[in-house]
């Protein structure tokens, strides 16, 4: 059953085209990764799905409905949550308040303050700390926790590992299985190829705004990915 289906999506920053005819399909409960170098269009792809950036071409269907015209806040209410680049935690709100704001859309489901505490015990220890004073790892967990509070059907994670200590990266990736076990699909965007392949069932490699390679994560040849990642293969 296809949860999210994007077909031939294009997006641009002014005169600069950032995505060229990108297509993707994600099913419920699946982890899918998009790998690519800096500037390959990974974050742009997530922004287009989350609705913070418009798609100039193509279609975006969620649960069979066209959502291209929906604003970002309405897409959250529909069941799409983004963990954005840079975490974007509210600096003057406490950990608890950040999570409560995450539930603003009032979507019902497995995730609430208690289940998030169980998922990331570290956050429970930092409960009354304001976002401004949280460390990078805490911010990343809080950002995922905040997105989960909306009980999304699909969770989009932008650079889960960026700037984090390896221990924290491992914790974050471990938590993905608990998230998908609730039926939530996860789309992760990564520069760290190995991490992304290990966590996902299906992967796409993005180069200069185009999907240049895709397949089951376990079956993708590392050499082929390297070539695709850096654009050295014959396309």
């Amino acid at each position, binding site marked *: 059953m296809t949860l999210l289906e994007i077909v031939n999506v294009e997006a641009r920053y002014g005169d600069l085209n950032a995505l060229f005819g990108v297509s993707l399909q994600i099913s419920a409960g699946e982890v899918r990764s998009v790998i690519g170098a800096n500037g390959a269009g990974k974050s742009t792809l997530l922004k287009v799905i*989350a609705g913070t950036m418009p798609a100039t071409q193509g279609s975006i269907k969620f649960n069979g409905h066209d959502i291209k015209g929906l604003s970002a*806040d309405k897409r*959250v209410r529909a069941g799409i949550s*983004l963990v*954005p680049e840079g975490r974007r935690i*509210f600096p*003057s709100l*406490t950990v608890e308040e950040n999570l409560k704001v995450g539930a603003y859309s009032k979507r019902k489901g497995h995730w609430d303050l208690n289940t998030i505490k169980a998922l990331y015990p570290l956050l429970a220890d930092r409960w009354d700390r304001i976002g401004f004073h949280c460390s990078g790892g805490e911010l990343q967990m809080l950002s995922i926790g905040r997105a989960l509070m*909306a009980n999304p059907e699909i969770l989009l994670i932008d650079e889960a590992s960026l700037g984090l200590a390896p221990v924290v990266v491992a914790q974050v990736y471990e938590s993905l299985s608990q998230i998908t076990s609730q039926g939530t699909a996860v789309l992760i965007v990564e520069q760290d190829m190995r991490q992304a392949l290990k966590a996902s069932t299906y992967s796409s490699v993005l180069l200069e705004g185009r999907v240049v390679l895709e397949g089951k994560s376990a079956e993708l040849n590392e050499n082929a990915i390297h070539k695709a990642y850096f654009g050295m293969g014959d396309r």
Partner: protein
Amino acid sequence: MVWTNAIIQGLLTGGLYALLASGLSLIFGVMRIVNLSHGDFSILAAYGVVALAIHSNMWVGILVSLPVMAILGYLLQRTILNRSLSQGALAPLLVTFAFSIIIQNLLLQFFSADNKSIQTGRFASMSIHLLKNLQIGILPLVTFLMGIFVTLTLHVFLNYSRVGRALRASSDDPGAADLVGINNRHIYGIATAIGLFSAGIGGVLFGMRTQFAPSFGPIALIFAFEAVIIGGLGSLWGTLIGGIVLGIGQSIGAQIRPSYGVLAGHLVFIAILIFRPQGLMPKQKER
């Protein structure tokens, strides 16, 4: 005793300035809009009560005109101010300046330039004796308590309600607020609705205390501004303290010489700007 009296009367007046200022502080805190028409909306609410009191009574006037202020605030935000927000910092400033001019001229048109006041009967002159030479008016006391009540209510709303937290989140980072499903434009509408509602409370109490004319808005605005700056930008309790400091300053000045009251208030304001520009209680990053 005259000085104690001056300080207490100033303290009570401070509650009025806090009421005039709290909405200004909220609107600035959430949207970074400097509402130059804030004082005019206060005066508009007072005129609303005057007009309605002719046909019924003062209480009906208050019960009708304050909610109308809130609705007006929401609609103005959704239709005009939100649009101006995307045009840079200057556009909303000019829009609120335009509101100020429009309100003043409409009031002149409908009510003339004559002074008006809200008739409260005996209420405005009632007082209680605290000590032999010290008595405080019921109206100033009610005004002061209302200032504390409104600040407290806003505090509870912003910290413990779903929409209040959304307001703070939106103030921190509107882009991230979008990503948790908050419709910033709706939230901004609510902020302005609350802002004008509280401006209305201040205006009505102001109108019970003294006479007013259509041109009084900017005067109310200056006092409100000074209260916000003295207290510290973005802090509601700071605004209450700022209003009180301004009130006491004016009252002590007036005790020295009656014509020095307003001047003394401005001097306190300038002193704060020079020696503590962040205000007495600036917005805290940590708790």
